[in-house]
């Protein structure tokens, strides 16, 4: 629904005049570059894009985008963004958030915006740590993670952001990683194209406080074994030579199988529109399974109404049936009497 810019745009058009202030080597740089690039490719006029964030290293993001931007307060970006989008549905609204910002203090707004299915895009930079406050465990930190506030290891069982989003009724869930430029770009394009709230979890390396948290999925040497690249309608294969696959047992639990040992039809086929597949993918955790990357879920259209469209449709319908609001008639709508 975004108004396209008249002339062709390039990445540079989306670079603001502010010095970027992340630590050297931070994964946020790569994400920034790809978002700027994709915005140009989408041809969204700068003035029609709004980037809204909370607080955190990641939440500095809007300052670096030459668009409208709102660096708000910790955890509340979805609330601010809801107001912007409902008031002005034609704007292209992007929420930039971190694992602490979105899932700790902001957890409630996060699940509610997904439930309401506003047509906005949420990019969650998941570095499994609180970066800006210098290294405390976050709601996505692994159990046992030793940080400044968990010297004997974190006791919290982490959220799977995708599972939480699914439980909240998300209509679009994707996962990608900061260093996979191409994949990241394609996820951003998919998110932008989706009608409804698009939730993209971006695994992001915090070099200072949680370096290498995603080393296995991003390192050249191991990633083929650790990433399960999801593609719509395609069998779930992974490994350097696609030698492994995912099979569903009779009770719908998944297992890893060697492709050579099974019939091709036994390999599960990814379907973004099947909620059970999304569930499977969002809960697939642990070292015995690869990490699903790509679009876990994407449903839109009938059955998945977009909140702000409903708001404006009701206004439209009210006007159709009652005529445009007449204040004088409103004032007179109660019992009145004339004093002479």
């Amino acid at each position: 629904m975004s108004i396209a810019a008249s002339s062709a745009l390039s990445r540079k058009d989306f670079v603001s005049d502010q010095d970027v202030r992340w630590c050297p080597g931070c994964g946020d740089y790569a994400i920034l570059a790809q978002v700027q690039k994709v915005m140009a490719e989408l041809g969204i006029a700068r003035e029609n894009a709004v980037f809204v964030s909370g607080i955190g290293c990641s939440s500095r993001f809007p300052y670096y985008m030459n668009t409208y931007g709102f660096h708000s307060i910790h955890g509340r970006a979805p609330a601010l963004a809801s107001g912007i989008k409902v008031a002005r549905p034609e704007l292209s609204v992007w929420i930039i958030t971190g694992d602490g910002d979105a899932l700790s203090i902001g957890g409630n707004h996060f699940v509610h915006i997904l439930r309401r299915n506003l047509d906005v895009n949420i990019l969650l930079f998941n570095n499994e740590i609180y970066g800006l406050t210098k290294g405390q465990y976050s709601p996505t930190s692994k159990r046992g993670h030793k940080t400044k506030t968990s010297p004997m290891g974190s006791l919290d069982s982490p959220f799977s952001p995708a599972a939480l989003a699914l439980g909240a009724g998300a209509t679009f869930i994707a996962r990608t990683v900061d260093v996979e430029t191409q994949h990241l770009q394609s996820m951003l394009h998919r998110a932008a194209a989706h009608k409804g709230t698009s939730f993209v979890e971006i695994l992001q390396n915090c070099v200072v406080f949680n370096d290498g948290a995603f080393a296995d999925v991003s390192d050249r040497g191991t990633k083929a074994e650790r990433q399960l690249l999801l593609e719509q309608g395609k069998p779930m294969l992974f490994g350097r030579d696609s030698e492994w696959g995912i099979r569903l047992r009779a009770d719908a639990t998944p297992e890893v199988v060697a492709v050579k040992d099974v019939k091709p039809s036994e390999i599960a086929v990814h379907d973004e529109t099947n909620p059970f597949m999304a569930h499977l993918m969002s809960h697939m955790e642990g070292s015995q399974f690869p990490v699903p990357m790509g679009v876990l879920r994407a449903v839109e259209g009938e059955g998945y109404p977009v909140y702000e469209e409903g708001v404006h449709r009701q206004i439209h319908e009210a006007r159709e049936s009652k005529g445009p609001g007449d204040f004088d008639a409103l004032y007179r709508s109660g019992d009145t009497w004339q004093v002479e």
Partner: protein
Amino acid sequence: MGEAFPLASNKPVEVLEKVVIRFAGDSGDGMQLTGTQFSNESALAGNDIATLPDYPAEIRAPAGTLAGVSGFQLNFSSTSLLTPGERPDVLVVMNPAALKVNLPHLREGGTLIMDADAFTKGNLRKAGYAQHPSESGELDGYTVFDLAMTKMTARALADMDLPKKSVVRCKNFFALGLCSWMFSRPTEQTLAWIASKFAKSPQLVEANTRVFKAGWNYGETTDAFANCYTVEKAKIEPGLYSSITGNKALAWGLATGAAKAGRQLFLGSYPITPATEILQDLAAMKEFGVITVQAEDEIAGVGSALGASFAGAIGVTTSSGPGVALKAETIGLAVMVELPLVVVNVQRGGPSTGLPTKTEQADLLQALYGRNGESPVAIIAPRTPADCFDAAIEAVRVATKYMTPVILLSDGYLANGAQPWKLPKFSELPDIEAKPWKQQVAFQPYLRDEDTLARPWVSPGTPNLTHRVGGIEKDYNSGDISYDPLNHERMVHVRASKIEGISADFAPCEIEGLQSAEVLVVGWGSTYGAISEAVRALNSQGYSFAHVHPRWLNPLPRDLGEILRRFDKVIVPEMNMGQLVRVVRDQYLVDAIPLTKIQGQPFGVSELCDRLRGIVEENK
């Protein structure tokens, strides 16, 4: 009966200056309906009126219990009126529980009308009466009419074949008819209203009409009543009037203000007593383009409102004390990003959950200081239910003109209380202007208007003016993030000056009462009516009082200090432990005396008279 109804009474008519009447019964007895319609009749009769409903705290307490009593009080008068009155002259009770709860308020010698049929053993027990109150002597000293209302209602409907339950449900119309007779109220409109309200069921129209007439005729024909009364027309500014509650006036004022600013009204809110009706009323105004978002909590309510303001709408959020506490951090953000935002606090009894259905004025200091850091906001407080309309428009105007959050402090008393409201003409209300960005100099998001110190309001969608706002301190010139020490000091000062500057728009304070009195009474918000009436009464008794009632609490009017110093004594009545009085003492170094009441109830006029007199005499 037939055609000729309503008749004018043939009994003698005594003229009264004013009457306070209270209808009370079980939650299911329709007392709110009865009271409201009686008020309408009185307004039509040309009286000035003021009303106060009094709902039970429980949603639906068991029938017949004290907790389930619902009341509605009306004051109608031939002189101008500002409060619903203190102690009723007339009390109408539909069951023993209603009597138990309300009798202590009936003035000595007052008139008591009771439904004799409801005083069954069971109901007496539920109300905690060991014996019938007429036997215990506790009704001595009142004029008591113990009428078989239920039976008479049933008799009027005898041939209609209605279920018993429906018959009993009509009995409030008997009371309404009787009281309409008793005070010579015009009845046409009520009959028309019955016809339209129950239009879907002709049987009910017929039944309620019959019972209403039965009540009227009972007064006229039986010997129980020797004469009837009337209250003559009050001198009221001519015009078309309607009775309006504070919450409704607020809702309409907000929508009107936004329309006058040429902006969309966006309300982000979360239900909470006693503010919920504003959300409900605005949710019903979709044809006006009003957007309401029932958010997941108060933080999301104010957050979405602020987002909407950034997007160019008039962002509003409505709540009560506990909810406003949750909004503090976001209001601080609004101070920093300097966007228009209206925060409505319909105050209730505190602290914490407190007395959720009761009234109080104890959130003024929260409004002034309830945020981290130096975060000044404008604060306005309406003084009457109808004034909520004007105050809401004024809040939108200041928020827009000065690019600032405005906190509007209403309270439970204003919210639910009703008052005649002279209908404005929309086209005659002044427009609200936000100064647009003029392209003469290079755009900077924090470049301030020289007069107002407001920054420009540029919304997404505007080409070439992309910019970023946020909660970190910003450079005075560029608006970029700045950690510079002197810049911070400058920004803190300029934000303060901007709010101070708002008082440039204020008219001089109006001083009521005696201009050269010894004692000045300073009030704010909903105590206006009680203070005004008290000062009027005291002055008529030979005392010497003046009254000033600032509408804006931040900034205070520029002439207030000078006014305060003109009087020997300054007394500040408030429904809290003394909050405005602290500000007055601090800012003007005047030895202002607090007069506090913190009972979840508004001041009564005579109570206030006594206490004002007391302070003056004590300090002599």
